[in-house]
């Protein structure tokens, strides 16, 4: 089973939904012409990144006209849009929406919202509370947004949940100008991460970044399509607009995992046990996920029971 995946490495306009929607339409058309089956857009590329107080102005309910338009554009095609999702209870999420054949198949809400240094996401966005793989007509995949992938746990969970490919919409700023490199430090770190996840978990990793500047902050581009051996089957330009396409042959996953069955050998129960121990939480307590927020169900003070002999 093989399919063509493309990445639209674009330069969105900050806060201009209509303009970016037109850009999306243009790129979806370009993808169709190039024979792409699945097209990845960068994180928040429908809105721009440094939105700050504009977040409520560009937020879209999944029932909105703009989202309906995207659904229509996905007929006979598939793509991942990066946008601000407004939930029914007025929370704003940094979201990746997977559209396929006229419908929304899955929404991933960014879990890890960087709020340090130059970043301020958690001020404006609500945190996502789940990491899930989902089924597509091409196979089982997961979407992880930018900073999500800087937490190794997310790729780990996606792989364990059956993802054969990770789609990573990103909006990554350039920074760090160490001598002797053709790219900035951040670009190099990302490339290292992407390759490590692809090889370690034996899956395809499709990384989609943007370019352009917002208030003096540049984005490094460098989008890439990696196979389960960590090989690049598609690489975009750095710092410039681009459009790349690569063939994803799912059989490569089988070959890689046959050669190096790391996931098969992973002792998930051990991981759970150790995490519970480190967290100081007995196994009958679990985190409740849902709209109400994050609670640990049934947490109360423990009493050590004496063992009967």
């Amino acid at each position: 089973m093989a399919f063509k995946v493309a990445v639209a490495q674009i330069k969105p306009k900050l806060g201009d939904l209509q303009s970016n929607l037109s850009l999306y339409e243009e790129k979806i058309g370009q993808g169709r012409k190039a024979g792409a089956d699945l097209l990845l857009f960068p994180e928040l590329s429908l809105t721009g990144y440094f939105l700050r107080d504009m977040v409520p102005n560009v937020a879209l309910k999944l029932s909105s006209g703009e989202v309906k338009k995207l659904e229509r554009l996905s007929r006979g095609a598939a793509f991942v849009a990066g946008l601000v999702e407004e939930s029914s209870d007025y929370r704003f999420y940094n979201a990746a929406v997977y559209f396929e054949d006229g419908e929304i198949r899955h929404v991933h809400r960014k879990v890890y919202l960087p709020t340090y240094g130059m970043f301020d996401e958690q001020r404006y966005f609500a945190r996502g509370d789940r990491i899930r793989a989902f089924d597509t007509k091409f196979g089982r995949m997961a979407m992880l947004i930018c900073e999500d992938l800087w937490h190794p746990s997310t790729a780990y969970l996606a792989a364990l949940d059956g993802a054969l490919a990770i789609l990573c919409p990103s909006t990554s700023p350039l920074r760090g100008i160490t001598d002797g490199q053709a790219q900035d430090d951040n670009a190099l770190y990302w490339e290292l991460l992407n390759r490590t996840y692809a090889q370690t978990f034996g899956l395809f990793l499709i990384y989609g970044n943007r370019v352009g500047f917002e208030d003096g902050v540049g984005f490094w581009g460098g989008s890439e399509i990696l196979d389960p051996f960590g090989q690049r089957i598609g690489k975009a330009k750095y710092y410039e607009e681009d459009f790349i396409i690569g063939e994803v042959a799912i059989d490569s996953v089988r070959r890689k995992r046959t050669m190096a069955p790391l996931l098969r050998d992973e002792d998930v129960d051990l991981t759970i046990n150790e995490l519970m121990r480190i967290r100081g939480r007995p196994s009958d307590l679990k985190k409740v996920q849902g709209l109400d927020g994050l609670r640990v169900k049934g947490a109360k003070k423990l009493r050590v029971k004496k063992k009967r002999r």
Partner: protein
Amino acid sequence: MIQIPTNVTLLRRILVSFIRNEVEKVGLERVVVGLSGGVDSSLSAMLAAEALGPSNVLGIMMPYKGSSPESLAHAELVVQKSSIQSLTVDITPQIDAYFERFPDADQRRRGNKMARERMTILYDHSARWNALVLGTSNKTELLLGYGTLYGDMASAINPLGDLYKTQVWALAEEVDVPDVIVQKKPSADLWADQTDEGELGFSYRDVDRLLYLMVDERYSCPELIAAGFAAPFVDEVTLRIMNSQFKRRLPVIAKVSERTIDRDFRYARDWGK
């Protein structure tokens, strides 16, 4: 030895792209820049020429009767080398007219008045020519507060504001700023025999090494001393940074409403662009 990263090839690529991008997105094509004959403005102008095309860059030379003639000659060198447009506006008449009324003004006041007069000329020409004012202040002088508020510090976009002086010199060599400009002692040229390093009391190369560790790498005071910097030097520079923070912020506004500019009314300059 502490090495400040100076990837000049990458820097050039990024800064040229920055200028092009940030000018074009506001619907313009041109910039105006004050050419002092110093390395910062020379570099800024030459990067802009590369980004926008030389005909879209206007270098304005604004000598005062007391300016070193060398400054003007060096600025002319840059104009010739880069083929940018140029204009000379002598600021002597307006400065002298003003201080005729306040003849007891000291050197500092006169210097600041000149810096601000130059700013007003640049902004007038940016309106006249439908251009943005290109900044030239580097990270070292911005951190140390060694610049005139609303004078040379004023600009629309500044490609050098995240470069230490050490990096400015390196990049200037890379883009072929005339050697005589790169090699000379930096000076604001606001009074005779003024030099930056004479005024600051330390060299740029020394303070850049300290600033890089202190600011970029976030070294604590004990870590800086362990790295070999003298405690009084560390204290002096720390104090200079702290006491010049007002130059790096918008004016302090009294908060009385629920939503105050620059505090809870937060938008990018590139709002809608």
